[in-house]
């Protein structure tokens, strides 16, 4: 067991010898052997002090998510290795020209990937609207390629994301789901909840990959420094969003694996709405535990999907690709590669 997900809010972890017990009240609902555990993802569940000690001692990366899949925090044991690598990263990111160059590559790849995805689906469903948005996104990608101003790069990225999510509803082919644009913090409908959840999991994958190669996940370029935000992971996750995140979510919805009945809406405890109606609109959506497990199953199978790497020609898995890309990013920072090549989804 390398990764373990605790998806039931309201449970807590207890240490029992050399394994962890997942408890609900006085009853154990699961047991996790600690031997070989590398990552623990807790969704709305808590843990005792003894468990924290043990997780730190065994260097298990522990991620805490809110019940609707929003990142809350992580328990990491910092590795003080690879000072040279971090130094290269800080130097690259503090040089404005380098910073823009990296951001540009990332945004360009994101726009091209998104456009490619939309134009493919446009062919499948025979929808002109998708084709039109794809063309607009390609145009933005060309603009980004020669853009020297960081703020403009960020603006183009936002514009592209907006266009993309405007037509996203046309990609949903199952009845009963409504999507009227992307909402975060908290997501307001099942589709947004699924997207948030999968993006959080992907950001985690990237963060792990970044840490493995010894870079500092908290300094990025496209995403500004913000307290507690792993900016570099947020930057490098961009190239995976469409093809690893959206495709998985859409597949689950369109194949009727998840239905609107699999979600519950909950009142927010922190009332910060203007009136009743506003509060209702801000009500976060939660996956029922049964579907959350099915979702994690699907996600894990998905991350294990085999694919041929276009750079090396070798077979890898989606998870392997993310790790490989982090290594490529490192090579670029260390001056062993002329530029960073994001994963070329648009050629596949």
């Amino acid at each position: 067991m390398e990764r373990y997900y605790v998806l039931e809010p309201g449970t807590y972890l207890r240490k029992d010898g050399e394994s962890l017990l997942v408890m609900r009240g006085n009853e154990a609902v699961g047991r996790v052997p600690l031997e070989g555990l590398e990552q623990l993802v807790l969704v709305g569940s808590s843990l005792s002090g003894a468990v924290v000690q043990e997780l730190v001692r065994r260097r298990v990366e522990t991620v805490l998510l809110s019940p609707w899949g929003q990142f809350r925090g992580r328990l990491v044991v910092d590795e003080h290795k690879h000072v040279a690598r971090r130094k290269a990263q800080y130097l690259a990111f503090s040089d404005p020209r380098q910073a823009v160059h990296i951001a540009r590559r990332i945004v360009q790849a994101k726009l091209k990937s998104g456009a490619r995805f939309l134009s493919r689906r446009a062919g499948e469903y025979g929808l002109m609207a998708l084709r039109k948005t794809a063309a607009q996104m390609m145009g933005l990608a060309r603009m980004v390629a020669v853009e020297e101003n960081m703020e403009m790069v960020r603006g183009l990225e936002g514009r592209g994301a907006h266009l993309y999510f405007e037509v996203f509803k046309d990609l949903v082919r199952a009845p009963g789901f409504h999507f009227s644009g992307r909402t975060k913090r908290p997501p307001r409908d099942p589709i947004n909840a699924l997207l948030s959840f999968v993006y959080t999991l992907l950001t985690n994958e990237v963060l792990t990959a970044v840490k493995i190669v010894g870079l500092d996940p908290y300094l990025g370029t496209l995403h500004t420094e913000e307290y507690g935000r792993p900016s570099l992971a947020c930057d490098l996750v961009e190239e995976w969003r469409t093809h690893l995140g959206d495709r998985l979510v859409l597949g689950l919805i369109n194949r009727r694996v998840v239905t609107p009945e699999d979600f519950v809406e909950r009142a927010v405890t922190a009332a910060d709405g203007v009136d009743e109606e506003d509060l209702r609109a801000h009500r976060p959506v939660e996956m029922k535990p049964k579907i959350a497990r099915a979702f994690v199953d699907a996600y894990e199978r998905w991350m294990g999907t085999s694919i041929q790497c276009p750079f090396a020609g070798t077979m890898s898995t989606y998870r392997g690709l993310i790790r490989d890309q982090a290594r490529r990013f490192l090579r670029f920072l260390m001056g062993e590669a002329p530029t960073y090549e994001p994963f070329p989804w648009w050629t596949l």
Partner: protein
Amino acid sequence: MSMFYVVCFDISDDRTRYRVAKVLKGYGYRVQKSVFECPRLTEKKLLTLMDRVDRLIDHTTDTVRFYRQCEACLKSFEHVGLGLTPERQSYGAV
């Protein structure tokens, strides 16, 4: 390279048995009263486990046996009655 092991034991003293079971719970799952399945043991972990068990048991009365199962063996697994087929997933969820 991790390997799948079936660990069975026969231990007469209650206290010793409890202690051995407690160690084994850290490496795998209890599928029967005195049978554990450890789905992902590396060579090193196996040796560590054997050594730890070795220190606990009474060599005049107790035995602990470790059976390694290859992928093909696992695929041809059969059972009658309760229980699930052995799994080698790299993740778990509850």
